[in-house]
């Protein structure tokens, strides 16, 4: 499987092809003129960061969405899928990151749902269904009791069942959307073996994953999406990891610039005593042994690709995610783990990544949104005090330049940037010690972005400790005094001082050991000597 040269790729008509596909949502273009194809037996990596348009493309290919422009071709002929069922019937199957089967039903029922074998009476022939299911799974070397409810099986097996279902519907293309994100290493091996078998039978695979190692093992070709455009198509083998990552992030390796892109001024490392110490934060399948030390007045970047555990680390710190082990302390006092109120009381607050569903309360006013967390402090005997609220709300609206017609305006009417400022105001009203920012500038316009960036700077200068997660390389590099790079849930390396540049970060994100980065032991980051890091990433 590591040598896919024998595959029949590039010899046949593409089994599935998209030409000039464009998809818009209420004026926002999610896919723009995307052309892309996959041949029988080919395994294609579909790459791109959040918002690049991967999921939209997959939904177009599987009939969940209809393209506004462009056409799909199946075996060289124009086709269109009005709904998922059409795509399935035409041989385009999908397995998702989350197993999309019915957990309460048996393995066999799940495989044959909607197309159960029937006896002459029109009743379902369970005996045949079970033996068919068993035979099907055995083909891929999977032995499991097909009568068991799906939910009693390990996630890896469930994923395998989803795959068996996908393939058994005469699939000629199987789209895999992050299929390994919840699998154990052993289960991943089984999946890869099955992928090999499928390809040998001429089935094309479209593989979406953020795990570089997997991509390079399983796939032979790659299509990179960025901001809804196809930015690269080609073979994966002669594409260095660094280059792939830089294409995904939209940073050219050759022309790594410094300064001028963001509003950040030079960030300084601080030598004040640490305000936050996190030790060995771990949670199964999410993060493993992450330790951090954050000092007042410094901005620490958490680098990493999607799925590296960067958001999960913030969730662990802020009590949103229950940890399996590890501790967080503020000024030497341990914070009760897994409790948001405890973290807030201790002074740790988090700006969540998904502003719309986890941040703002959409139907409430700007005022109510700003004071939401601080309400008890701004009340007298349980009654809200408009005067106290106004004092806070007016200050923050002015200071953060939140553009509102009045504090009573409904927050969902605001632009993304102003909503984000409202969220920041909500937390500043709590006078926190540590501010965790998860993608603070995602989905907001350029002007607002600059404002948020300079605000982050300003807050750090005032002594707030800030942890910054961003998928924009320049934001992390220019905003942070040091950058802790995560990969697959663990700390890969830490960049400090002059090493905080785009090249080193890209190298670390790619996990390119040949590039030389990543020599530091995870967990010992704070004592590492920055001089140990090579500044030149690309060997």
């Amino acid at each position, binding site marked *: 499987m590591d040598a896919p040269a024998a595959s029949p790729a590039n010899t046949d008509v593409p089994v599935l092809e998209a030409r000039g596909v464009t998809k818009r949502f209420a004026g926002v273009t999610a896919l723009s003129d995307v052309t892309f194809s996959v041949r029988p037996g080919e395994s294609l990596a579909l790459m791109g960061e959040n918002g690049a348009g991967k999921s939209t493309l997959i939904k177009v290919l599987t009939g969940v969405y209809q393209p506004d422009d462009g056409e799909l071709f199946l075996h060289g002929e124009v086709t269109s899928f009005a709904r998922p069922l059409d795509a399935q019937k035409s041989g385009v199957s999908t397995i998702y990151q989350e197993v999309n089967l019915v957990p309460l039903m048996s393995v066999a029922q799940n495989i044959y749902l909607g197309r159960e074998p029937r006896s002459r009476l029109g009743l379902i022939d369970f005996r045949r269904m079970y033996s068919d299911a068993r035979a099907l799974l055995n083909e891929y070397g999977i032995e499991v009791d097909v009568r068991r409810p799906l939910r009693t099986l390990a996630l890896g097996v469930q994923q395998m069942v989803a795959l068996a279902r996908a393939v058994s519907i005469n699939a000629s293309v199987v789209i895999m959307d992050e299929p390994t994100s919840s699998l154990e290493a052993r289960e991943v091996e089984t999946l890869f073996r099955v992928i090999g078998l499928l390809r040998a039978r001429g089935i094309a695979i479209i593989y979406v994953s953020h795990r570089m190692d997997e991509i390079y093992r399983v796939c032979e070709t790659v299509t990179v999406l960025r901001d809804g455009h196809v930015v690269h198509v080609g073979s994966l083998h002669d594409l260095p990891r660094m280059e792939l990552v830089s294409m995904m992030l939209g940073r050219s390796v050759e022309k790594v610039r410094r300064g001028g892109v963001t509003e950040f001024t030079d960030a300084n490392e601080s030598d004040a005593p640490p305000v936050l110490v996190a030790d060995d934060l771990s949670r199964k399948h999410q993060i493993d042994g992450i330790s951090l030390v954050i000092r007042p007045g410094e901005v620490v970047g958490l680098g990493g690709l999607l799925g590296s555990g960067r958001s999960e680390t913030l969730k662990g710190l802020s009590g949103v995610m229950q940890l399996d082990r590890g501790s967080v302390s503020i000024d030497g006092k341990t914070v009760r783990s897994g409790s948001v109120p405890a973290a807030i009381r201790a002074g740790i607050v988090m700006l969540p990544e998904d502003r719309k569903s*986890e941040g703002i309360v*959409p139907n409430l006013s700007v005022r109510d949104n700003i004071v*939401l967390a601080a309400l008890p402090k701004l009340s007298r005997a349980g009654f809200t005090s408009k005067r106290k609220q106004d004092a806070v709300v007016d200050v923050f609206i002015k200071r953060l330049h939140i553009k509102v017609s009045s504090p009573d305006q409904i927050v969902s009417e605001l632009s993304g940037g102003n909503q984000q400022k409202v969220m920041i105001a909500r937390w500043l009203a709590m006078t926190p010690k540590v501010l965790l920012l998860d993608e603070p500038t995602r989905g907001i316009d350029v002007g607002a972005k600059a404002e948020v960036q300079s605000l982050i700077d300003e807050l750090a200068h005032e002594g707030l400790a800030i942890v910054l997660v961003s998928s924009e390389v320049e934001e992390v590099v220019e905003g942070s005094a040091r950058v802790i790079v995560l990969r697959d849930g663990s700390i890969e390396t830490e960049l400090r001082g002059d090493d905080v540049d785009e090249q080193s970060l890209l190298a670390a994100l790619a996990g390119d050991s040949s590039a030389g980065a990543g020599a530091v032991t995870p967990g010992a980051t704070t004592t590492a000597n920055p001089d140990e890091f090579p500044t030149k990433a690309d060997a």
Partner: protein
Amino acid sequence: MTQATVSVSVPTRGSVLGLFQKYGVYIAIVLLLAYNLFFTPNFFAVDNFRTQFVQVVPVLIVALGMALVIGTEGIDLSVGAVMALAAAVIPLYVGYGLVPTLLIAILVGAVIGAVNGSMVAFIGVQPIVATLSVMVAGRGLALLVANEQLKSVTDPGVLSLGRDSVLGVPISVIIAAVLVGGVAILVNRTTFGKQLIAIGGSRRAAELSGLPVKRILLLVYVLCAALAAVAGVIGTARLGASVPSTLGNLIELSAITAVVVGGTPLSGGQVKVLGTLAGALLLQFISATLIKHNVPDAYSQIAQAIIILLAVYIQRGKARVK
């Protein structure tokens, strides 16, 4: 993910539908009153309005509590049973006067509400089933307490609730008015109110902002049941008898209708107290109009059913925007 949020953010504001979502209930009341002004003899008489207000009181009080629960994206089907239970305990405390009787009834209601609230907030049972089981058991308990008997209530303090007036305004109406004001203040002017609306608006955001979500949910169900208990006492006082077998039967339907018709969406995140008052009045005026025109009760039930469906159907667009 981003796409989904973008595609639904088209506000219905300004459109005719949006106008109806916002002011439908008030428009309907005005139209109905106008109709009665011209076509219903003796509708616009002080006596008639006094009767209408007295009759709407129990539904209104129950609906106030229901509005709080619905504001958190919940529902409480047990309110009728709580009324029955409150009615059942009254005869046990006859002779202590109005205030102790009222307090005991409220206490009983609060306990039932705590059962509902614990199931919903701490165990995570769907509100509809949690309160359904309490509805079944509560009515049975009420009948057990009353030994399945109808008892007349003779306590003059309790009876005054149903019969006496102050300056021509019936006491029960005054109580309802005070409660409307109280709940309005609670919703709009207290930390608790703001927090409960935030929970209904986005439970996830409320949790991430460190709000005591479970405690607030518990309290909301306690409050709802306590209000239902007050309605139970008033209902009993008006009848002059404790009738746990029928008091509050199907009141959950009328209360939910009043709340939804009043503009509080079933999807939570908003509580319209004045709207709820208007909703309850609208339902009352509709049935009064139908009665005065000798339309059989059957048709007013059908009318109410259609109104519920219409109101929810119109609200649906609003919920989607959220």
